[in-house]
């Protein structure tokens, strides 16, 4: 057993991080608020790093990697708060044409979760929907709702209310559809880990630089302990999500039962989304009044964390599922 990142894994995470720092600085991310969350050239560059096609076989133009590596990449995307339907496009790559290359942007939505809100509606070339029969279907293009609600909770996640007729061609069914959901759950969790980690860093940086009562606010224990708790949540959640990635691959390889992978992704997303939401809240509190302003980035992290927490298993649902594993 060696649950530390290998040299290749560290290199992959670092490459993703430096790509994001170069191409998705917060200034750019904020510009995307007015562009429906996706700018085509940037999306294409993202595809160029392998974000979407990395898990495809080399013969299919991918890097032959797996969920072990994908969770590391998505953690970095979360840290940079890269917007857009990243998880859906990653999962659709290889199944729908042009997705791995970044030529087509694919979203996903759960029809079982009402109100049915489609994210990034104006940016989508295709939409995958998870239906009540447990299938993943490709929604007919004409049925994709395009009208953004005027005030999305997360400015980087514009949403449109879906109407009827969201059926379509089945893309994944049965075991494949279940695997789709497990991977989606793991990657959403990974993205959340990135948010949890980044908001601790932002909080620490501010606590070191902001002075009150002639001392850095980070020297107050009340502040320190908030951040220590946040850092602790991150470490537990990160370990859980990395374990989810590794366990998914081992289950895929037939080494472990699928039920274990199911449990690992459930625990991973639950802990990660809780950590992301709680840490973003902590970060906001540490920023005081500045944290409540639009210009400081913290709210964007908090809002995205809540978007992640609202899909593919809410805290309630995931906890129930965990309870089922225990008893």
């Amino acid at each position: 057993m060696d649950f530390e990142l290998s040299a290749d894994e560290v290199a992959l995470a670092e490459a993703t991080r430096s790509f994001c720092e170069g191409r998705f600085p917060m200034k750019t991310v904020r510009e995307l608020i007015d562009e429906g969350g996706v700018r085509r050239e940037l999306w294409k560059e993202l595809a160029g790093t392998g974000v979407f096609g990395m898990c495809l076989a080399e013969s299919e133009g991918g890097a032959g990697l797996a969920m072990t590596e994908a969770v590391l990449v998505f953690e970095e995307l979360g840290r940079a708060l890269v917007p857009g339907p990243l998880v859906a496009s990653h999962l659709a790559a290889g199944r729908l044409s042009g997705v791995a290359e970044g030529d087509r942007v694919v979203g996903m939505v759960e029809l079982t979760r009402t109100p049915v809100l489609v994210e990034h509606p104006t940016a989508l070339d295709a939409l995958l929907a998870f239906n009540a029969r447990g299938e993943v279907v490709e929604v007919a293009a004409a049925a994709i709702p395009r009208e953004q609600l005027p005030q999305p909770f997360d400015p980087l996640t514009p949403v449109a209310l879906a109407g009827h007729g969201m059926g379509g061609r089945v893309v994944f069914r049965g075991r494949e559809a279940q695997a789709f959901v497990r991977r989606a759950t793991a990657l959403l969790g990974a993205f959340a880990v990135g948010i949890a980690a980044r908001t601790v860093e932002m909080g620490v940086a501010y606590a070191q630089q902001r002075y009150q009562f002639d001392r850095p606010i980070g020297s107050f224990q009340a502040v320190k302990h908030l951040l220590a708790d946040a850092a602790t949540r991150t470490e537990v959640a990160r370990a859980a999500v990395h374990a989810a990635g590794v366990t998914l691959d081992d289950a895929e390889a037939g080494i472990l039962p699928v039920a274990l992978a199911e449990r690992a992704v459930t625990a991973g997303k639950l802990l990660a989304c809780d950590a992301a939401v709680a840490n973003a809240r902590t970060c906001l509190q540490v920023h005081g009044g500045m944290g409540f302003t639009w210009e400081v980035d913290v709210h964007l992290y908090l809002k995205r964390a809540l978007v992640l927490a609202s899909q593919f298993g809410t805290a309630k649902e995931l906890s129930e599922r965990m309870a089922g594993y225990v008893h």
Partner: protein
Amino acid sequence: MNLRYSEDEEAFRRDLRAWLAGVLPTLPPVPAKDDWEGRRAFDLAWQARLYEAGYAGIDWPVDAGGRGASPTEQMIFLEETESAHAPYVGVNFVGLLHAGPTIAAMGDPGQRTRYLPAILRGEEVWCQGFSEPGAGSDLASLATTAVRDGDEYVVNGQKIWTSHAQVADRCELLVRTDPVAPKHRGITWLILDMKTPGITVRPLKTIGGSSEFSEVFLDDVRVPVANRVGDENDGWRVAMVTFSFERGTAFISDLVRSRELVASLAAIAHRGDIRRGIPSAWADSATRQELGRLAAELDGLWALTCRNVSQAARQGVPGIGGSVFKLAYSQARQAMGDLAMKILGRAGMSFGEIESLGNAEQVEGYVYGISMGIAAGTSQIQRNIIAERVLGLPKEPAWTSN
């Protein structure tokens, strides 16, 4: 990263399982909670069995008599013994996890041959005399003095919360040898023979009603200078070495046990009282979700343990993981205890088992969770450590009275 065990590791696990299956049914019954002589004899006998089978000091260096195995094998050992409900390390804790490794690393050859084999063979019990009434979290302010008199130190002072002191043969003792030096630089680490004249051990009752730990009074206790580990006034550094030996594996048995406790709690929650028309706690979704959340937390902590162990295996020393794990685990244990008491309701009103309800171990667990947030560095101290040493936040200004 991977969570797959190597062929060697799997072989180690298989052999251990087979050995446990053979030996466990032959063990005598576990002594009562407060039968300390009985517990001492039981724990030492178990350690002797481990020694004979080559399982003593799995991760101790070979030249100290250990197996020199990797932290991963130590992890497997702890996981398997706990899963098989083998005896816990018990009164051997300080010897095997603290004093032994410290002497192995910092002791002179005479000390190593005198003390290490006796720990591994299950012949001597150690206790830890660090905390004092006036020096808990601020351990370095300890006031027990040791004054040199020829080739002996004369020790005076008091220790407190000394676990297992009443059945210990030796004590790892921190004393002040330089009263004027800055507090961290006047401390010395001594090996104290608990039969030396001048030692009074007075058991303290814990909130669990047992006498787990004691007060230890030291009046003109003479300790040979030869019993000093490390240099005079360099004891703080030696103590830090002591603390670093956990190598991420200190709570593995505990964590395995916690997972079992959650499962038993779920079983208790399933039971209603149909005769009296009382629904099961499981029917309540909030209770189910709290249990599920805890299970997720324990899974996450298991993954974090795997990470810390892997780090120790690669680097020889644990990373920052120790404090993070300790804090998160203490919190989880406390949440678990709180939930257990809620689910038990009236059944929680007895430490003893009521009609095989399974309440006893849960009530014990509730009390144990509370101690987790205090012993070995309180949760507040862990947060300070994480904030200052991991996150790099500024230290608090020193407090002055004026």
